[in-house]
């Protein structure tokens, strides 16, 4: 036995087709339906959502800075938390429909690290997603931070806190925190799109966007909730 030679030559056009069709298997975070892509929002909307998100992010940065001034070692821990959020959102989740989908992970983040910190970490995560995965955008960053970094974590955290007060089992708390955080993110995104393209009215447009994205997002939210239950079960057993 020796070295084997011979390799098929692939034409450029075949190569192109192959690159485009296989990128999803090699590239994390190919397609999620929840981040508004670059160029999708008119200038007033892009600016408006950035202004709306800014106070939360600034508050998050302040909270984070205060925390690491007191505990310098938390710098690495918080970075690990952010990296975890990014990785989770870049992983392909099992899906019912067969289309690939990614968890938002903001529900778990909100429970583990609290919403203010998540506002800051999510901003960095979204910036990384825009620049490392061409996922989301820069002019749409404010809108995406609002839906994924603010609305999602607060709704998730709210559900978690309310169910905790009601003494619901941990599994139930986690399921609803994760699922509702995901749902809230997608509903806010639908609302943002409806506001930008109110055709003919914001209400009708919201119903339209919400319905179309619901096809992928509702099963996804349920699965994300179930994944959360497994996640916290494993964490508790360690």
């Amino acid at each position, binding site marked *: 036995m020796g070295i084997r030679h011979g390799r098929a030559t692939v034409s450029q056009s075949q190569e192109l087709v192959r690159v485009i069709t296989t990128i999803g298997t090699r590239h994390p975070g190919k397609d999620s*339906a929840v981040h508004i892509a670059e160029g*999708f929002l008119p*200038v007033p909307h892009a600016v408006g959502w950035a202004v709306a998100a800014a106070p939360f992010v600034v508050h998050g940065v302040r909270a984070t800075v205060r925390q690491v001034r007191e505990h310098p070692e938390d710098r690495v821990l918080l970075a*690990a938390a952010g990296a975890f959020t990014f990785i989770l959102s870049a992983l392909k989740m099992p899906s019912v429909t067969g289309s690939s989908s990614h968890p938002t992970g903001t529900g778990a983040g909100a429970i583990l690290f609290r919403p203010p910190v998540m506002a800051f970490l999510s901003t960095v995560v979204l910036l990384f997603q825009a620049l490392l995965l061409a996922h989301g955008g820069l*002019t749409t960053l404010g809108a995406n931070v609002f839906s994924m970094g603010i609305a999602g974590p607060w709704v998730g955290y709210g559900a978690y806190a309310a169910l905790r007060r009601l003494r619901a089992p941990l599994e139930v708390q986690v399921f609803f925190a994760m699922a509702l955080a995901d749902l809230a993110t997608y509903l806010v995104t639908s609302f943002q799109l409806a506001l930008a393209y109110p055709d003919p009215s914001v209400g009708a447009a919201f119903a339209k966007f919400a319905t179309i994205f619901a096809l992928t997002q509702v099963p996804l939210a349920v*699965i994300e909730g179930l994944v959360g239950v497994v996640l916290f079960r494993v964490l508790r057993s360690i």
Partner: protein
Amino acid sequence: MAFSIDAAAWGSPWRRIAVADKALLVTGTLVLDLLVPAWPGTLLVAAGLTIAAIASARVDWRLWLAALALPLTFVLTGVLSIALQVGPPAPGSTPWWSWGPLAVTAESVARAGTVLGRSLAGTCAVVLLAVSTPMVDLVDAGRRLGVPAPAMDIAALMYRLLFVLWESAVTIRSAQAARLGYVGLRRSVRSFGSLAAGVLVSAWDRSRRLEQGLSGRGYTDDLRTLRHVRPHSPVFLAATGAWLLALAAIGTYGSGVLG
């Protein structure tokens, strides 16, 4: 080796250009992209940036196309949703197709076309920044802009840990798949949940170890390092200026002609 955009950025000839210069090109283009009439403005933007990317920034054309295709799912879903109207068509619109409360009109298709163009051109601009500027350079730029050091330290560490954790995630996932953990939805959800837990545990473990490693290197508060100093490039700035002016001029002229 999943992050091909990042890999391209580290080897880009445009890495030598100051981040501020590139930021001017990209943000200027992004703003004009949203302001100029979409057709033919956005096509011009996309074409110009593609030429700049492939001819000057030496981006592999396969990577360029693949990166532009990444937001495709969202863009197509979004654009088709905009083309589809719900409720009675506005007075004066030209209906092309209707079914019950649903309608597609010339105006809604035009709007969808506008968004499609802006999204394509905008994605070109963001990807051009992404393939020519590694994250560390952007973090340094953030520090110069006065973002608090701890926040930038966390962003920089996040970027570093990302790759370490990604390796873990890929390994855990393939180990699970090898033992048939992704056969059937039920098992898949369980495996994915324990994958998430595994990555989180590994994140904690890594952060604790890195914290110890750093304290051995004298880490007390800020993570001070040397920064790359890249002078402004007059040629690049002149070209950027000319490009933005041309875009603005065509935009103004175009809106006069096309209304």
